[in-house]
């Protein structure tokens, strides 16, 4: 079995274990990356078709998730053929089939998005409908060495592309050109980019630049790019001046804050602990301080989203993104019981 399929199987077992711990009988997912996370299927939706109708149903103790998809060639090889069903464009038929799947189960129904139809399904069966987010967050770790290796590969691919984009930052360069350099330099992409690439002008505040913007001589440009390889995501960021200056002072201050935050990254530390360490080291609050990484951007999300008390689990992959003196950049690390393991060199 290829490493990506094996990793998907390991994730699926963690999802099942979390369902058992939380007495969830069926997990219904409509959000594309969450559906991929739980099922292992590479793509379950046509672009834009996803709303609140679940496309993946995980029944407790089932050998595989049931996936409703237009792309059956995206199912992992261990998934039984019977678990791969054609996507139904009729919402009524889709919901009827979901009702059939969940009827024999016991325990709560967990769902990621609000759907009146799913609410009715839960009400009719007298079962609680609960938020799937905590369950999925719990299943994000501990990652196996195989999963971590795939994430490291994705990070390396993204970093190679980012280096090319950074090298192209110069007065007169269009933002679109920076993205083009990323796309050309990143090793072959298996899957789709995490985003169009985020390019910011770092000044008194950060200004997100659209593709037609031209870099000016006195600009300091922050870049964040992401991609998928083998079903796993790499997200990387760096900052550079248009003059080519590597922003040495900012980078040094950022590096010190990074080390301060990283020291806190161990099993049991909370998001609040990380944020306190970051603030003490001079980091400002510009978006999340850190986020998980796996088949996309995953829990935990550290920074201002009400998750301050949730402890870090060993086996979590974290992308740290402190911002110090208008300088943002990222490296990723692996949380353990003790000191974290860096998954890439700091930029």
């Amino acid at each position, binding site marked *: 079995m290829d490493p990506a399929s094996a990793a998907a199987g390991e994730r699926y077992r963690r999802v099942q274990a979390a369902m058992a711990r939380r007495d969830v009988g069926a997990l219904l997912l409509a959000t594309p990356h969450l559906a991929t996370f739980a099922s292992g299927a590479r793509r379950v939706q046509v672009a834009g078709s996803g709303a*609140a109708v679940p496309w993946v149903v995980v029944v407790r103790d089932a050998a595989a998730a049931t996936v409703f998809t237009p792309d059956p*060639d995206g199912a992992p090889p261990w998934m039984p053929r019977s678990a791969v069903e054609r*996507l139904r464009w009729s919402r009524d038929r889709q919901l009827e089939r979901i009702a059939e799947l969940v009827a024999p189960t016991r325990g709560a129904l967990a769902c990621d998005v*609000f759907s009146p139809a799913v609410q009715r399904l839960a009400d009719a069966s007298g079962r609680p409908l609960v938020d799937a987010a905590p369950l999925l967050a719990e299943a994000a770790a501990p990652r196996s060495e195989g999963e971590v290796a795939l994430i490291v590969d994705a990070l390396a691919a993204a970093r190679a592309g980012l280096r090319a984009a950074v090298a192209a930052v110069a007065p007169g360069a269009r933002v679109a050109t920076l993205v083009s350099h990323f796309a050309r330099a990143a090793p072959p992409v298996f899957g*789709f980019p995490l*985003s169009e690439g985020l390019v910011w002008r770092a000044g008194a505040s950060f200004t997100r630049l659209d593709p037609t913007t031209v870099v000016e001589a006195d600009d300091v440009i922050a870049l964040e790019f992401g991609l998928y390889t083998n079903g796993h995501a790499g997200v990387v960021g760096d900052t550079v001046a248009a003059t080519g200056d590597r922003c040495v002072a900012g980078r040094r201050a950022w590096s010190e804050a990074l080390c301060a935050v990283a020291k806190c990254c161990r099993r049991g530390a909370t998001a609040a602990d990380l944020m306190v360490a970051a603030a003490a080291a001079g980091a400002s609050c510009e978006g999340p301080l850190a986020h998980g990484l796996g088949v996309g951007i995953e829990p935990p999300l550290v920074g201002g989203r009400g998750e301050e008390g949730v402890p870090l689990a060993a086996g979590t992959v974290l992308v740290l993104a402190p911002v110090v003196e208008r300088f943002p950049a990222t490296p990723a690390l692996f949380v353990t019981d003790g000191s974290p393991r860096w998954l890439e060199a700091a930029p």
Partner: protein
Amino acid sequence: MSTSTDPAPLRAARLARLRAAMAAAGHEALLLTAAGGVRYATGAVAVHGDASLESVWPAAAVVTARKTYVFGIDAEHVPGDVEMHPWPAAPASAFADVLAGARRVGVDRLPLALAAALVRALPGLDLSGAETSTLPARRRKTAEEIAILREAQRMNEAAVAQVLPAIVPGRREIELTGHFLAAMAEQGVTACHVEPIWCAIPRRAADAPWTFAGGVAYRELTGDRGLARGDQVMIDTGMLHRGYMSDVGCTWTCGGETTTADRTLRARWQVIVDAVLARCRPGATAAELHRAALMANGPDRPPPWPVPLYLAHGIGLGGVEPPFIGTDLGLEAEEQMVLEPGMVLLLEPYAWEEGLGGYRAEHMIAITDDGFESLSGPPP
């Protein structure tokens, strides 16, 4: 053109349609969290891309009969006449504040926990699917929307044309994605909304055992296989330009030299498209297009599109849209889908035959007052 916000006339036209549709659907307000929905309603540009990015940069729009609000989008990307808020620490109470007295509220992809908190914050709140408002509003495009779609399609076609010479023996399918994204970026388009497809079409059903029963053999996902001379490479690329999705599809023979089988299949595809186009006018039903495609494809052949995909679909801001023609919705439902001026359709039949392989391409049209206008060029 800058994509910082959408121009005022475009926003005004969309919002007027949305509010009319809300009134018809009985929605007092909408709470939208998908990037395309937020942009349609307000013109504010959220960070596009994969849904996982939304967990880091969430955004929302609230639309009432009198006012629009945006949460979580940078000021530079929010039109001046939209009330702007940072992403709140307590989203439910912030949304409850601006929803004011509204109780019949449509939502698109609201996280379950947020929905529950909102219901607690607003006793008597009746949440329902926003699609009963958004889909009717979006069904017909304004002239400006059609112009953007035409432009988006032209840029995507140009980028695909740049990549075609790279489809040579030994090239891996996945390598073509990087070429394409770079070519798109050079056009100024960087929002990749759907994984680009560059994959060799199976020539025999046995080569595609995953195909659903009753359908023609096909692949949808780019892999790491090396291409061989003569492979029929199916291309399908969707990018967002000013929020609107282009959708370019064609089939290219690896090495560039077509065979008799390739030409036969392409000719059949053209016959099907021509038969469908001949019926594309206001008042025609989706069922008419469906039947025309079946007839042009010839008897004793399965429908000329992959299961569970379609002969045609709508398209607009943020992705594919109804109508979906040729799906499990069935002919009876398609009899009720009536073409109207301003609708934009992608026709994408797939001519496939055991042993010969396949040919698939896409053709974008806008329904006009008396027929249709092609928004895409002929396939290469």
